[in-house]
Structures are given as C-alpha cells and as structure tokens.
C-alpha cells in the first residue's frame, strides 16, 4: 500500500471531494515527486475553524516567540521545538531531515486573526533534542486517525527514523469548516 492510498483513506477528504480523488492524488503525487519546493503532505484541513487554546490570550495580536510553547503555530504540536534546537519554526536543525509526511493542525495567527493549516513536520536523524518540550494537542486525534495524530513519530520516509524535534510549517489558510 502506498502512502497515497493512506492519504486517500485518512486525510485529504476536504480537498479531494472537490475533484476526482484518484486523479487529484495522482497529479499531486506526481508533482510532489517532481518538485521538492512545495509543502509537505498531508494537506488535509484539520477540522475547520479552531477553538482558542486556553493560554492564547496572552499572545493576542502578537505572533509570539517561536522558541516558546505558546507561539501561535504550535497549537497542536507534541515534541521538542526545533526553534530551540538549532532550527526555526519551519527549518530543521543542521544535519537533520524534515519528515516528508506529517500530522496537521489548524491554528489562529493572532497577528492577522486568520486560521492557518499547519503541518507539524518532525526533524529526523539524530537523538531527541531534549529542549522546549511542548504538547498542545488542539485537534489531536487517536492513532486510527493518523493524519491528525501528534503522538506518532513522523520520521517516516526519512533516511533515519530517529526523532529529533518538531516544527510548525504554514501550508495554507483554513477557509471553510471541514472535518
């Protein structure tokens, strides 16, 4: 079973229903193989407009510090923040490799009040960074709904499966409530 089948089962309903699933996926897959510069999969929407996190009041209007757990993008993260490990909110620390597949969430950016789809790519190939552990869990779902599960070690399809840290990468704006 390829992971495109997995995605078609689990993750991309919100997008795929607007198109022919097979052709969409095969097209997307072909483009992804050919172009390394586009965002990582999956691109499913996490669950429509999100509910504010309990600790978000302090960062209203401010995008916050990517080295702290209450940075807006980390609303559904679970792991060591790469921004504390030599990387940033969207780049892996030197010598580690971003996971090509991942779990996703929807977080509100207090700077513009919009909800964004966030891809929580793990960085892989070294032991745990051990710094800035953050576990916020918005939209986190059980293991049988893997595209929304932040408990999985997403270091899959990488040279090494070793988990080092986690990022929050903007892959789009959440425009409509979808599940």
């Amino acid at each position, binding site marked *: *079973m*390829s*992971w495109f*089948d*997995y995605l078609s*089962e*689990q993750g991309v309903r919100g997008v795929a229903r607007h198109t022919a699933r097979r052709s969409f996926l095969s097209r997307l897959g072909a483009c992804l193989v050919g172009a390394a510069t586009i965002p990582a999969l999956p691109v499913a929407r996490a669950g429509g407009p999100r*509910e504010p*996190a*309990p600790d978000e009041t302090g960062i209203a209007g401010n995008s916050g510090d990517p080295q702290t757990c209450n940075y807006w993008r980390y609303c559904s993260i*679970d792991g060591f923040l790469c921004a504390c490990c030599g990387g940033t909110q969207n780049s892996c620390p030197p010598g580690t490799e971003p996971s090509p*597949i991942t779990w996703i969430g929807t977080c509100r950016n207090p700077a513009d009040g919009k909800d964004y789809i966030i891809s929580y790519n793990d960085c892989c*190939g*070294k*032991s*745990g*960074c*051990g710094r800035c*552990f953050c*576990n*916020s*869990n*918005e*939209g*986190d*779902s*059980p*293991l*049988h*709904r*893997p595209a929304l*599960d932040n*408990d*999985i*070690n997403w*270091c*899959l*399809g990488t*040279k*090494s*499966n*070793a*988990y080092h840290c986690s990022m929050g990468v903007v892959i789009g704006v959440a425009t409509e409530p979808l*599940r």
Partner: protein
Amino acid sequence: MNNRISCLVFLTLFYSAVAAELAVETPTTASLAEASPHWMWVSDLVFNAAEGGKAFLIDGDSGQMLGMLSTGFFFASALHDSDYQTIYSPEVYLSRGTRGERTDIIAVYNPKTLEPIDEIIIPPKRLTSVPVVGHAAISEDDRFIVVYNFTPAQSVSVIDAKNRMFIREVETPGCAEVFAAGPRAFNMICGDGTMLTLRFDDAGDVTSVRSKKFFDPQVDIIDDKMAPYGTSWAFFTMSGMVQMVSMGDGIPVFAEPWSLFSAHDLAHEWKLGGYQYATICESTAELYVLVHQGGKYTHKQPGVDVWVYDLKTKVRKRKIPLSRAATSIYVTQDEQTLMFTADAEHSGVQVYDASTGKHLHDVEDLAANPMLFWPVRL
C-alpha cells in the same frame, strides 16, 4: 591433590592473610522470587534519548524495583504468554543508534532471569509513537503475536510465537492497533468507525471481517486508550462514553455505550486525560479512570483524581485523590487490589491501596518518562 583442592588451599592461604570478621563475598546475580500478582511492569520512553528505552519491574507490596529490561528505540510495552513463562518484546534498533540500518525484533526474555534468550526478526515497520497499548498483541492461545506497522502504510506483522518465526505481513488499510480476540483472532480499530477482525488458522493464514460502524469519527471518536477486562476491552470516546467490546468469541460484540460523566460533571469540565487513563480490576469489576478539569484538547493532561466505577451497575462508587497528578494508571487483578500511577513527564511511580485509596509507596527516580504499565498476568 587435584587442581580444585589445590586452588582452595592456595586461596585459603592467600586470604588467611586478610582473614576478616566479615566473610569474603562473591559477587553474584540476584534471582527473582516467585512472581506475584502485585508485580507490575512500567515502560520508560526516555524521550530525550528514545533509543535507550527500558522496562522496569516493581513490586507493589514492597515498593522496590526488582529488575529492568533494555528495550530499544521508542519502546511501547512487551507481551507475555498466559503462564508468564516467556516475555516477547517488540524492539527497534538502528545500527548506529540513531542512524544506519534499522532492525526490528521480537526480543524473547526469560521472565524468571530477565535474560534475553532469543530474538525474532520482523519487518522494520513497527509503529513508533508515544506508546499505546494496542501496538501489539498475543493471541489467547499464545500461538500468534501481531505487531501493528505504520510506515505510514498500515499493516500488521504476524509472528508464530511457538516456532519463533515471522510468518507474514497483512495489509490493513485504514485500520490501526491490535487487540487479542479469542484464541486465534485480533481486532483493529478503523478510522471509519468500524472494527476489523483478523482470524488465523494453524498455518497463520488469515481471513478478515469488517464490523458494523460502532462509532462516528466526526462526532465522538473512540480514543486509542483502552483497558482489558477479561476477554472484553473497554474503549472510551473523547467525550467520556464507555464502549465495552466483547472479543472472546473472535468477533467483536458491542455493548450499549454509557457515560462516565453526569451533566453536572460535564458542566464542570471533568475529562479523561493522560496516556493510559483507564484500568479495570477483573475480580472486583471496577473501572478506574484518571480525570481532571479542563477544556477541549486537554486529553493528555494528567489526572488529579481517580474515579472508580462499578462495571455491573455503571455507577461511580468512589473518588481517590492522587498524591501527585498522573498520566498512567493500572490496577492489579486480585481482590487486594493495588493501584499504580505515574506521570510521563516525571520520574517515579506511586502505589496505592485501590480499595481505600491510601498512598502506600513512592518508587522514586524510576524511569525518565514512565508511559505504560503492563501487568504480570498470573
């Protein structure tokens, strides 16, 4: 004079120069006593160096650590056969610790000596995640072990435990986790709300059956935290409904769901939370759950109380306030029930008398990140 006696004479002469009030000692290796129903294993994820996973064996009566297993990368928990003669531990190793070639094994240990005695190589596909109970299972007749794979393709590896060999991989698209279901079957939870049953014949050949939809993943999804109860398993929805599933006959039978929380509880935001938040004592038919007050998506927050339910009446019988908040809980299966708790972010295990709620022991500095309890089933 033979060589042995010659040596004894020589050594006696040697040590006579240092003859002591305390006898000269020989370092040895301790043996385990006869296994007790109050023994408990706890898994250590060692999250900051997950290649160094461990399992600790503790005695709930004495509060002592009894021994340890070294269990590799992103360890979840191990299995054992029905008479506790063999431990089967799904383990992952990379040839250079965090890089190089990956090898997945079922390590085989002797539970009496805690020595590794064998290993079974399996496909390098085992799920690595924050540990869940359903990552692997052993059939009730001890014949087959099934390990859940996620690459992210979903499948299971089937192992013949008797002959200690990998048999085959079975693709299980859309379905995750494994639970023993009768002598020769396993159930999995599928993302569409159904259950998948895999039945094995003597050769390990498989047939599969899909159940009716027993939960709606868009409305109130079944969580991946669950508790065994004889040949049944208690599952829980994110809102706190209990879904008991009888698996003894190989095909899942779904009981009527019921709620742990009254309207009043829900109004006060009481919730399940943690990594192993529910456990059942078979002899007393009591369900123990870790609860806290919190908003949506606090489902991994540690519980501050344990609420105890009578499974026959589905009524909450008592509340046990915890000496420290916990993300995992397990009770022994006997009537002198002990309750073990731990917090994944803090070292140490707490032991309570489950019937009185009395805090008996803190087993301190045990495990960097205690995640899953797994019992010595006797």
